[in-house]
């Protein structure tokens, strides 16, 4: 008869020894690591606004395992580590500014994602192009000689504008905040991805705004635009106010004004470029689309991007 001892693996013998020693234990070998994680998480939760210390803690957390290389897939996968309900919650929080809740601290919690910003910008670009197309049709379909043209170049223009706004403005803001932090005026700075995340999610409110701009009542359009800019501008202000609060009054006032102004400029530029109402005089329709391409508000569009 073959001896069972020769058939048992050595690893099982070690586990069997552990089982014999502690009969009530569960068979998890590394019992210390989860507790270490829990204690670190509790520490970061207790701190209020100690940004520098929190950055150190997050580095510690990240440094326990080797941070993946930029060129590996798992590095980029860490930016898409969100669930559906998390994305929906972040969108909801970007729509409703609550004075006591900072978007970055409360919602992101050192877990920024790139899914939201990327797909919200893509949806907004396509929504702008489709709505502007529909708006042209709705204005002109009663004219007998109107020949519809898809105006596909607007997709390109919308895409470039939105993506430039959503990536260049956070870059400039991050650079500025880093400089102020270096000079010593600011409390701290969010990471670059957190700023991109805030800006991406703050653009969400423009999607229903752009769709509702199809309604050709001018007063309603302006009201919706002002509402959208004020809501998302308030979220941005509440997010960045704790950082620049300790700066000189002039610098903080200028920074926040510039942020809100750029946001409003994007909305106004989109309204003028994509939803320009044609003049009501009867011009030959074959020339009208060419006039549409160079609206009087095009200077604002170039300033916005």
């Amino acid at each position: 008869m073959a001896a069972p001892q020769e058939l048992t693996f050595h690893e099982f013998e070690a586990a069997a020894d552990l089982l014999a020693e502690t009969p009530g234990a569960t068979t998890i070998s590394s019992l210390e690591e989860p507790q270490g994680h829990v204690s670190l998480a509790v520490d970061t939760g207790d701190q209020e606004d100690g940004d520098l210390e929190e950055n150190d803690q997050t580095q510690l957390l990240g440094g326990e395992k080797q941070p993946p290389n930029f060129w590996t897939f798992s590095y980029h996968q860490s930016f898409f580590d969100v669930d559906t309900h998390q994305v929906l919650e972040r969108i909801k929080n970007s729509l409703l500014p609550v004075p006591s809740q900072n978007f970055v601290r409360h919602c992101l919690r050192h877990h920024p994602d790139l899914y939201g910003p990327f797909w919200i910008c893509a949806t907004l670009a396509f929504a702008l192009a489709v709505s502007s197309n529909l708006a042209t049709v709705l204005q002109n379909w009663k004219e007998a000689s109107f020949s519809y043209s898809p105006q596909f170049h607007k997709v390109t223009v919308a895409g470039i504008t939105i993506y430039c706004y959503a990536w260049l403005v956070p870059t400039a803001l991050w650079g500025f905040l880093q400089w102020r932090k270096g000079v010593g005026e600011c409390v701290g700075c969010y990471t670059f991805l957190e700023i991109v995340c805030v800006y991406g999610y703050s653009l969400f409110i423009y999607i229903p705004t752009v769709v509702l701009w199809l309604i050709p009542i001018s007063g309603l359009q302006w009201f919706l635009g002002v509402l959208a800019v004020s809501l998302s501008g308030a979220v941005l202000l509440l997010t960045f106010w704790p950082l620049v609060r300790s700066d000189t009054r002039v610098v903080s006032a200028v920074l926040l004004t510039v942020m809100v102004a750029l946001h409003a400029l994007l909305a106004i530029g989109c309204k003028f470029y994509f939803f320009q109402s044609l003049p009501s005089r009867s011009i030959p329709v074959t020339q009208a689309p060419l006039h549409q391409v160079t609206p009087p508000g095009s200077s604002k569009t170039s300033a916005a991007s």
Partner: protein
Amino acid sequence: MAEADERTVGETATKPGFLGLSDVSISEDIPVEGEITVPMASHSQDEDYSTLDEPVKETIIRDLKAVGKKFVHVMYPKKSNALLRDWDLWGPLVLCVSLALMLQGGSADSKEDGGPQFAEVFVIIWFGAVVITLNSKLLGGTISFFQSLCVLGYCVLPLTVAMLVCRLVLLAGMGPINFLIRLIVVIAMFVWSTLASTAFLADSQPPNRKALAVYPIFLFYFVISWMILTFTPH
């Protein structure tokens, strides 16, 4: 032998007998022997040569049958693995080229307000499919890159059928009833495409992220449907 038995008995007394397997032994009555020769070895070698030697017509017809079978699977989407297991990109290429050829708009003089050009449609379809595949892989999906491209490309088939129908309907001239027919056909085919691709792709996603992976597919087919619906011939 007896000493070994005594040792095993002693060990089972002290140790808790890990899952009761420590006293399993293989009886010598069951023979563990057989042949390790592959009986059909010579035939498989003949088959390799035969696929090289077969006439070109047979190869092409075999590939066409595979593509046709996948078309059938897209039009009647059941949860089968045929699209995923034997992926190929011939079908998506044919569909994309035909859709782009049918969609390319416009007269040469008014370049700015014409429809999408061939290159624009081609780039949108392929670049869009690549971005959606990357997105689903980054979210933790288990499907491979080319399998996902294959599924997304094949599920453009209902929209290509819609494009054909739209072109035929437009031959009868423009008008509101004309537009209504085209709208209904395009909406139906858009829903069919999205449901077909979701049926194949949604299972490979983690369950709490399915909506995050399906939304870009919805957006992709929406954009293609929009291009089809707004197509106007010159």
